[in-house]
């Protein structure tokens, strides 16, 4: 059974990424871009950092307090994006957003992120899932501008 079919496995992946998220803790390093992300309707609040070298995502880090969905989505997004070139990262981010908002997306491209493919059924959690997406997009846009 794959991730899409096995609900128990999906939940395990989400819980594991919530309780042991990847790259929690920020670094004092001016080569990173930094962005705070929070949403008005709930209390999630994350600080995120991004380091891009030669058009490749070298590192993404985060810290803050957020719910299981926000934290786990941040962790899985970080894992999915590190090592990718910026254009691929943007594609993954766009597909991720589409999936969360019930649009069309490529599951192959999203890999483990498909654990959230039914999240749109819980409208009050959509913002939670998109919190890290927003911060990373903002930092990538700032990179483009500079």
């Amino acid at each position: 059974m794959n991730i899409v079919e096995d609900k128990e496995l999906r939940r395990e992946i989400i819980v594991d990424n919530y309780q042991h998220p990847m790259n929690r803790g920020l670094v004092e390093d001016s080569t990173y871009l930094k962005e705070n992300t929070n949403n008005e309707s709930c209390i999630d609040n994350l600080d995120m950092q991004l380091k891009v070298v030669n058009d490749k995502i070298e590192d993404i880090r985060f810290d803050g307090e957020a719910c299981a969905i926000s934290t786990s989505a941040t962790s899985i997004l970080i894992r999915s994006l590190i090592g990718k070139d910026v254009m691929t990262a943007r594609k993954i981010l766009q597909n991720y957003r589409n999936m969360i908002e019930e649009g069309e997306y490529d599951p192959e491209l999203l890999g483990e992120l498909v654990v959230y493919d039914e999240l749109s059924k819980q409208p009050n959690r959509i913002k939670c899932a998109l919190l890290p997406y927003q911060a990373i997009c903002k930092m990538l846009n700032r990179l483009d501008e500079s």
Partner: protein
Amino acid sequence: MNREDFPMLRQDIVYFDNGATTLKPQCVIDKMVDYYSNYTSNIHRGDYEAAIRTNKEYDGVRELVREFIKAQKESEIVFTKGSTEALNMIVFGYFKNILKKGDEVLIDKAEHASNVLPWLILQEEIGIKVSCISLDENYELTVSEVKKSISDKTKVIAISHVSNVVGDIRDVQSIGRICQEKKIYFVVDASQAVSHIPVNVVESNIDFLAFSGHKMMGPTGVGVLYGKYDLLLKMKPLEYGGGMNQFFEEDGTYELKLPPIRFEAGTPPIAEVIGLGEAIRYINQIGVEKIHEHEMKLKKYLIQEMEKIENVILYNKTSESGIVIFNLDRVFSQDTSIYLNHYHIYIRAGNHCTKMLKDDLKIKNTCRISMYVYNTKEDVDRFIEALKNSKDIFKIVI
């Protein structure tokens, strides 16, 4: 108590978010519907029957409020949109014109945003200094800490009567006495107090007091500003318009009406004020002391049962009100609240608008249970049962 009076409780819910807003008894709803259905009219203008009745109902609430908080005069009661508006009126209508650069205002870290931000803005605007009175090891505000914090520069002490997070009842009578001796203005946010414990503005020497109707079984959109009359005479309105002026002329001359009407420009929330009056009558029928006794009995039982559950972290066991803040170990407060919603148990997760308290609590967000007159032992049992099952929390929230 009195559950049958609350239409919301016909649903299968446990309502534990009374610190945010309370449920409304049928009599309050009926009272407002009666105004809208049978005698809708503006106040203080019309000469017809409905208008005369509206005047009587609306103005009658001022006396009810006066008696409720034991003020000396009806004219010391101003109707506002809620405590936030009242506190802003106090800060920007009165203290902005009285305080000078370097004057100190004492608040504390458990204050609600509405009793912090206006002062911080005033600090920015005119250079007053806003300082925090330290809380004790239970995050409560004690009289001795208040005494310790007062300096020669202290001109105002502005605190809540009951904290909306910790739930501690502050000894406003002693603090009021200190303020009187030291000629310090005493401002009290009574939003979490008025419908839970007796409030007496004269005995506590309170200069200004604010509270909201919706936290005391009344409607949203209405609140009260109490001010000693001589202070209200010096306070400037933040809004000007109809109803509050004596006259105005083309040459720029004008005269404003006396307080409290001076501060109620435009058409006020008439139905809401009338609804608030009914809520006060309802509370009086039960008795505030009885409400407090009921809340404390429930809190004691709730704490006793919560302490038996391993992964529960309690933060305010000692406070004497129906507020309990907690977290489940290694669970984000919002996840707990979403989990409890699955069992139709309504609680609040977050910082409860007291963003400065995180430094003392060492945690930003908590779950808050705030109980009221209609909560029961059965509500507590249902909540405890849900907490006991919370090992499976992620099966429900994810």
